[in-house]
């Protein structure tokens, strides 16, 4: 799950913060405590201009998945709406159970419940699910979404990708390839996979596996108005202004054991000023007591919100699923002692400080977030690593590099290493800390600021990537199968370029072993080992496990950080009556 970058702090926002940060007066109509009840309107405020995507097959950021999964789109399975690790439990949603695996985990079947309906009252069929998943293959139109369907389904692929081009362009022959991999028998849908995927019932929690009625599919424009099969439907959506959801009268609560559907109406107001959002919710007066921020809290307001007990029922500060790190381009820095020197030299305390201090996260000892409780275990980080950096230990490692790999040593201490980062004020500060840390150890670092919107497309291009590139990653579902293979294996987010490293073969063997493992506990043990291995090879430098802060008005209850997505559990929020 890619890191959502909604924060565009401009001069205006910065200036407004100065003026507004100390102005949080006003009465509070309620303190955020209450019992869940139906009714009322919840209004969300966000600085974003629009949702990244509304089309379920294109939906991929944690917040958007949590929002639409809670309100509009149902999938075969989903996550329990519960606080803490209980929220990581996969539960049956449209399906009668969490799926049946056969053929050692290469074939999965799900049977739809009775009473599933679209917003027009028509029945949600197995064919609707199959059609929805097929859209993922139309990669010219259905962009930005997760592509697990393409990776996993047993459909032949050529040099230019899958032989099935999606439902819009497929010939009868090509469509038959898909129909062979995804078939319907009454209410039962069966997925034939090209390999064992032990946790495929987690995969189908993604909205990319949501149904779409073929007759209502408008391709590119489906991103503006989707047909709901959840408790709410879209009444209006004006980008840069607002979205309004109202109750879907044709949603059958008896068919949905997962969602509560508390409010009568949900409004999202886009393009709000972050400082104004904070001030309104801090004041929480009048109608503002029914507001919820979708963008956390500005750093300068964190001490106010978390330092005053009057906000204790309205605030959330928890570990989110993101692991933040700096990927090392191993192709260019094919020298372990230099990579270790980078790890040891880094002042991680200062890195965290410029990101917001302890509110930004906890020091990371690997790449698997503690939110994936089954797979996380504390790692042994290299000797000599200290929170504020250890220049002397780094210099000793560089001495080893001088003889072991003189070319890389010469580059690191002479010409300099290139540090890629998004061109934003926050990341510029981060780069400054890196440069200063490395300088103390005798390593030369050159910043390479990249336009934020193009950051990933640049660093994922081998020809353009520098030596070190900052990154952040969260599991697509609560299994490290969506973390370690993505970051250092065959996945699509490997910016460490480590596949030519002699140490990669042993790592790949671990990956293959884990992915084929159907025993979850045995699989978790392998992930733990692989996590330590990647850290030992310093293919990336972990900085911290992210934390998120959420904030809501005094008349809204039920707020907590939903583990799978690191965002509000939108379904759990209710209006205090």
């Amino acid at each position, binding site marked *: 799950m*890619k890191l959502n970058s909604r924060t*565009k702090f*401009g*001069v*205006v*926002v910065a*200036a*407004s913060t100065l*003026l*507004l940060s100390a*102005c949080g*007066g*006003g009465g509070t109509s309620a303190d955020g405590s209450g019992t869940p009840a139906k009714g009322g309107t919840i209004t969300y405020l966000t600085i974003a*201009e*629009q949702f990244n995507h509304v089309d379920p097959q294109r939906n*991929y950021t944690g917040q958007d998945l949590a929002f639409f999964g809670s309100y509009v789109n149902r999938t075969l399975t989903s996550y329990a709406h519960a606080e803490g690790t209980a929220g990581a439990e996969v539960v049956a949603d449209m399906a009668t159970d969490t799926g049946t695996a056969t053929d050692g985990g290469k074939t999965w079947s799900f049977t739809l419940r009775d009473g599933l309906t679209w917003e027009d009252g028509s029945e949600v069929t197995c064919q609707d699910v199959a059609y929805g998943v097929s859209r993922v293959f139309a*990669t*010219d*139109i259905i*962009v*930005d*979404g997760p*592509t697990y369907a393409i990776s996993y389904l047993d459909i032949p692929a050529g040099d*230019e990708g899958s032989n099935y081009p999606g439902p*819009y362009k497929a010939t009868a022959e090509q469509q038959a390839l898909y129909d062979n991999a995804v078939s319907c028998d009454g209410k039962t849908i069966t997925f034939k996979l090209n390999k064992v995927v032990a946790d495929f019932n987690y995969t189908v929690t993604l909205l990319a596996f949501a149904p779409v009625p073929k007759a209502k*599919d*408008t*391709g*590119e*424009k489906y*991103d*503006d108005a989707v047909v709901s099969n959840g408790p709410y439907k879209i009444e209006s959506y*004006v*980008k*840069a*202004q607002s979205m309004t959801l109202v109750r879907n009268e044709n949603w059958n609560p008896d068919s949905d054991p997962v969602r509560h559907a508390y409010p009568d109406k949900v409004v999202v*107001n*886009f*393009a*709000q*000023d972050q400082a*104004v959002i904070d*001030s*309104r919710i801090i*004041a929480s*007066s*009048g*109608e*503002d007591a029914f507001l919820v921020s979708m963008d956390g809290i500005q750093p300068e307001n964190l001490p106010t919100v978390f330092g005053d007990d009057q906000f204790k029922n309205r605030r959330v500060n928890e570990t989110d699923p993101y692991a933040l790190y700096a990927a090392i381009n191993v192709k260019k820095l094919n020298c372990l002692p230099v990579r270790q020197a980078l790890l040891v030299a880094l002042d991680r305390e200062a890195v965290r400080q410029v990101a917001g201090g302890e509110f930004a996260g906890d020091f990371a000892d690997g790449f698997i977030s503690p939110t994936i409780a089954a797979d996380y275990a504390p790692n042994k980080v290299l000797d000599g690593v200290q929170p504020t950096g250890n220049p002397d230990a780094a210099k000793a490692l560089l001495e080893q590099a001088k003889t072991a790999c003189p070319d890389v040593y010469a580059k690191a201490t002479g010409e300099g290493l290139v540090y890629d980062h998004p061109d934003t004020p926050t990341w510029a500060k981060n780069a400054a800390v890196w440069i200063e840390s490395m300088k103390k150890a005798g390593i030369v670092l050159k910043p390479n600021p990249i*336009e934020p*919107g193009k950051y*990933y*497309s640049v660093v994922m291009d081998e020809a353009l990537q520098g030596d070190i590139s900052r990154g952040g990653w969260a599991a697509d579902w609560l299994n490290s199968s969506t973390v370690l293979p993505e970051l250092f294996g065959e996945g*699509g987010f490997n910016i460490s370029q480590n596949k030519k490293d002699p140490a990669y073969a042993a790592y790949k063997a671990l990956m293959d072993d884990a992915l084929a493992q159907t025993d979850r506990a045995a699989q978790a043990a392998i992930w733990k080992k692989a996590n330590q291995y990647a850290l030992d090879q310093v293919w990336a430098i972990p900085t911290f496990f992210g934390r998120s802060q959420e904030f809501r008005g005094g008349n809204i209850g039920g707020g907590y950080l939903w583990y799978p997505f690191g965002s509000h559990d939108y379904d759990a929020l209710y209006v205090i009556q």
Partner: protein
Amino acid sequence: MARFVVRRLAFMIFLLAIVSIATFLLFSVLPVDPASLSCGQHCTPEKIAANRIRLGYDQPLINQYFTFMKGIFAGRSYGEGAQAFSCPAPSFGYSYYRGQCVTEMITNALPATISLTIGSAIIWLTMGIGLGVISAMNKGKIQDRVSTGLAIFGLSMPTFFIGLLLIYVFIIWLQIFPFPSYTHFLDNPFKWAQALVLPWFTVAIVSAALYTRLTRDGMLETMSEDYVRLAIAKGLPRRKVLVRYVLRGAITPIVTIAGLDIAVLLGGAIITESVFGLPGMGRLALNSVTDSDLPVIVGITLITAFFVVVANALVDILYASLDPRVRLES
């Protein structure tokens, strides 16, 4: 008069054609590839190449320009088969970045900007001209000094500071207004006005200053004209002299500047709209520039140019009717 209007219209069309060519050429040479903006996360060179063909960016520039211009008059279709969709005329293109027709985005943004412009123009013209008249009528006196002082204060204050100051005083401190949340006029006129009062005054305070100075100087200059002194000597009432001779003589440059100011403001008040969260043209322009969303930038540029050219023509016509010395035919 009719000949003049026709001539102005023809010139206006010519000017807009030039602006459209210049804008199109300018943005086509920028190092931003629109085909990559709609490519998604796992973008490959092959996908970008396919996108380029799908979006028509593989065509010669002149073909792209004529397709774009044709879209303005006849609308434009995108995609193929059952997934095809169209942006009806006048179509300024399609933003694949936001997944929306540019005209629709501009149409959504214009009401907020028009609301801001009209309201603030009424206030700044009333304030500016009113203070200018008071100042001119009381040259050297305390009223003159206060008016001039206010004008200098308004001129010297950055827009964002005025906006934030008004938010602090009227929303946070005195709590007279709620935090502004733009509502369409037809949905709720009261909430519409409530959300716009502070933005109106923000723009007006900054803009009125110039008009105060212009009115004051213009009136003082006109007062020394022979025809004014003759009118006073003949015993015409002071109010009549002031309105019919002095103000009318002084107002022509004000009309010119007001016309252009209003036209430019219709293109978007970036700072005011951002501070007050107004979903107008300014914020749309700012975000489009940040995101390198070229079709939207081209659309906004052309619309703004259209407003300026139209305002210019209207000002010329008004100028002629205000000042009989100006001959339309000349």
